[in-house]
């Protein structure tokens, strides 16, 4: 089995030019008003660059970016990505692809990973840009108040069994404690485990994260930070996240076989990428699903500045 931690990751310069060899055939980014997303879009060297405009941000016609901007009409992640993909043209056998995951609404990003795999893509690059800080620190609101439903993400639906005696839900806990609580409540009888992004993106973020997550403590069922039920994975590292997930699941299974496994990535985009990577690599076609509390809207801009740009080379299994 692959060791996720050897996969390539590097930091790209914020101000200086990027090395010559850092270029792609196709570049995709999800449009938001965050300055860092737009800056990266401009900086990238690619044969073609594409914006994906997601409905949850509520952009009006006059707010759209110039250039290739696909406006998603459907809110279903599967249909949206499939239609978007049609507009990209053929990638070709040597075509390289890069995705800026920063602005994505999580379920779309998750589905996209499965989609890429189904298209036979075995390697792609992902960019993630870090902000300097969030707008209101621990009071930052992310998702709109109207959480529509908790359901499986398309492409990440498992084949579950009738025995639910040892179900486990692993939550990648982010700042939005309401989402954590909703996800936890949707799988009331499952044992909940939490992964916190640590080391975090900035020094004070882990602490803020835990403070927020504590508000969902009743739903999760354990004292927040309980060592037996909470784990760390680097907030900026999808590969470490996948690695940690593998370790957790393996440990749980050796204590008592898990009847149904549910994963819910609510934290940073790199961690979301890690959850998706772990799933498509090791948990397809089994009793594992990625579930998500879908919101009907998301706040557009919750961060300031650009402090670091990560580049990950993700390797997917062959279908």
């Amino acid at each position: 089995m692959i060791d996720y931690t050897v996969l390539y990751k590097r930091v790209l310069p914020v101000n200086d030019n990027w090395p010559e060899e850092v270029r792609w055939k196709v570049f995709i980014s999800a449009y938001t008003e965050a300055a860092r997303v737009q800056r990266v879009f401009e900086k990238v060297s690619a044969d073609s660059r594409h914006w994906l405009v997601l409905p949850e941000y509520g952009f009006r016609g006059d707010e759209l970016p110039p250039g290739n901007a696909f406006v998603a009409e459907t809110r279903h992640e599967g249909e949206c990505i499939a239609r978007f993909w049609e507009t990209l043209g053929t990638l070709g056998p040597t075509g390289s692809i890069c995705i800026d995951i920063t602005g994505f609404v999580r379920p779309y990003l998750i589905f996209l990973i499965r989609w890429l795999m189904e298209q036979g893509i075995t390697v792609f690059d992902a960019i993630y840009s870090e902000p300097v800080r969030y707008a209101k620190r621990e009071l930052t609101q992310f998702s709109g108040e109207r959480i529509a439903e908790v359901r499986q993400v398309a492409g990440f639906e498992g084949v579950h069994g009738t025995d639910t005696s040892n179900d486990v839900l692993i939550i990648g806990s982010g700042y939005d404690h309401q989402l954590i609580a909703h996800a936890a409540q949707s799988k009331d009888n499952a044992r909940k485990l939490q992964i916190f992004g640590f080391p975090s993106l900035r020094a004070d973020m882990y602490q803020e994260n835990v403070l927020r997550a504590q508000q969902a403590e009743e739903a999760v069922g354990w004292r927040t930070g309980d060592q037996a039920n909470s784990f760390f994975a680097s907030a900026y590292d999808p590969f470490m996240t996948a690695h940690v997930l593998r370790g957790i699941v393996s440990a749980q299974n050796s204590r008592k076989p898990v009847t149904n496994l549910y994963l819910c990535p609510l934290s940073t985009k790199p961690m979301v990428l890690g959850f998706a990577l772990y799933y498509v690599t090791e948990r397809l076609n089994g009793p594992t699903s990625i579930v998500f509390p879908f919101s009907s809207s998301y706040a557009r801009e919750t961060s300031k500045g650009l402090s670091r740009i990560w580049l990950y080379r993700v390797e997917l299994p062959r279908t």
Partner: protein
Amino acid sequence: MATNSQGNPFNITKAVDFSDEEISNYWVDIPTGGGFLEMAKPTSPMPMLILGGKGSGKTHLMRRLSYPVRRLDRPDRPLDVVAADGFLGIYMRCGGLNSARFSGKGQTDEAWAEVFAYYMELWFSQLVLAVVRDVFTGNDELARAEAGICASVSAVVDGPEGVQTADTLRALCDSLGALQQEVDASVNNCAITQQMDVRIRTNRGALIFGVPRILVERLSCLSGCLFVYLVDEFENLTERQQKYVNTLIREKVSPCSFKIGARLYGVRTYSTYSADEDNKEGSEFEVLWLDERLRKQRRNHYRPFARRLVVRRLQEYGYLPTTSVPAKALDASLSDWFQQPSTTDLPASERAAIVKKYARSERPYFAALRAKLLEGMRARAAPGISAEGDVDRAVGNLRVHDRPLLEKTNVFLLYKDWYRHRPLPEASLAIARACHEFVSADVRTGRYWDNFSHFKGDLLAQLYRECDQKQRYLGIDAFVDMSGSLPRNFLVVLKHVFAWAMFGGERPFGDVPVSHRAQRQGVAEATEWFFRDARTVGIGGRQAQESIGRLGALFRAIRFSDKPSECSCIGFSFDSAEASDAARDHIRIAEQWSLLIRVGTQRDRNTERVDVKYQLNPMLCPRWDLPIYRRGILALTPGELNAIFDPAFAEGFQGLLEARIARMTAPFFGRRRRPAKRGDTPLFSDDAHD
């Protein structure tokens, strides 16, 4: 000795984590007939909808009915248990179906309805077969009949070979499981391929009703046995999917029945696919409102249960010895461990503190009274008061130096008399006499006693506020009562109280009682959790929550007014016909989320008017400094009701609140001010309230 490292004994609050012993004790206490089993009527063929709020123990009740738990009574001879019970509980959680995936992906709703129905057939039948296999442990009737059963079952399934050739229940079950996985694979891949090719191999009901029927026909040990499908987490199904289950209920075939477990907000529809007819309560199903039933039946039993629960937790976590001290003594110590307030008056120390604090100034309620009397005097709205000397005397009569609560009562009575236009100097003398009599002769009847006993909770609350102190929600009984018969709420309160005590460096359950401060903070945090946690998914939830905020503000304004119209008022009534649709909607949502509790319906014999009564959930009351016990009910006008519960009218809320409170506020009590001429009698009539 308690230390930090032993942890918070109340950290685990969910019923799903209670020990079986805790749960069996909880349920055993129910006084009627056979206890909890009776309540759920497991042998009744009439389907039942079991509705419970969070923490009501609904899941536990359903699981107690399920075969794996019933079987614990006689693990070696499960058939005897089934024979004695007369029913077989097949438990399933709708959440396990992950049924939201049966939608969209480029397929029609009709196609999904078919697939979902088929999936349910496969799911239910696997459960039934697995249970029956276990039932016949140690009995060979099954072994003899097995092949025949399999043949009958496979006759209603179209292929495949695995199903057709199975001759044991196990093999049959596995084959049906394989069919289920086929459906899963197809449904899941549909998201990628936008194509679905599920082959529906059986008709609706053929397995769900067919398998139990076949089993009962071929196994004499099961004859007369009712197969009860315990379908929990109903709220996890979409409306269409619920419609399908409703259809199964409507078209049910012997020997099957259903018990559907849902959250209070969980039922999206009663409609069915049988000509779109609705299932009706009383004809197709009956309803068990678990919360309400628990509240009513358990009043006498819940308190002792809750106290025992605490003791057991403390023993488990090493704060209490397990054997040496008798349970009764431990139970008694519970009261000692929490600083308890007196319910009759302020403790002597607090009285002394107030006396000291205002040694050099007027006590705040007298200062306020004085100011109002002066204002009233100037506007000629204070009967009998025409000079400052009158004010001094009126106030002076009401003093009882070391009994601030009695002073408050006196002031309250004076406001009441004032409202009734009684001459105030005489009124204040009469009050002073009555007060004196009350104190010296310990009179328990009459006006003074009535008002004191009814309003003392509110008057104490006012006193605390006026003296810059926080409200009190103290003592283990208060926590129990706040929780409204739901152990989870109770544990959450204790959890936070304990956490605050530990943070404060206290040593709870040791020699020193848990401080007021820790109790107060703990209660506040538990209340906040309850309010916040009820913020619902979807439309209407937020607005319902905001409505509750307005309601709480109204109750608070009443409680702290000069002359509250109701005592201990956390309930309201209204004419249901006059409420706007949106208001009715939000009230319904608030009830579903247990923010409001319905306390009654009154039908007026003459007018056909139906008045509905609700109260705030006591878990919420501390948020607005309200009492947790309900006494008075506030009759809301239609305008007020809509202003509270309908956002379209919310703008008018503040004005309506002020108008109502004005009637409880001296010196004018809401009457319009006009220059009064000597000898005038007031033109405006009084309200009915007093």
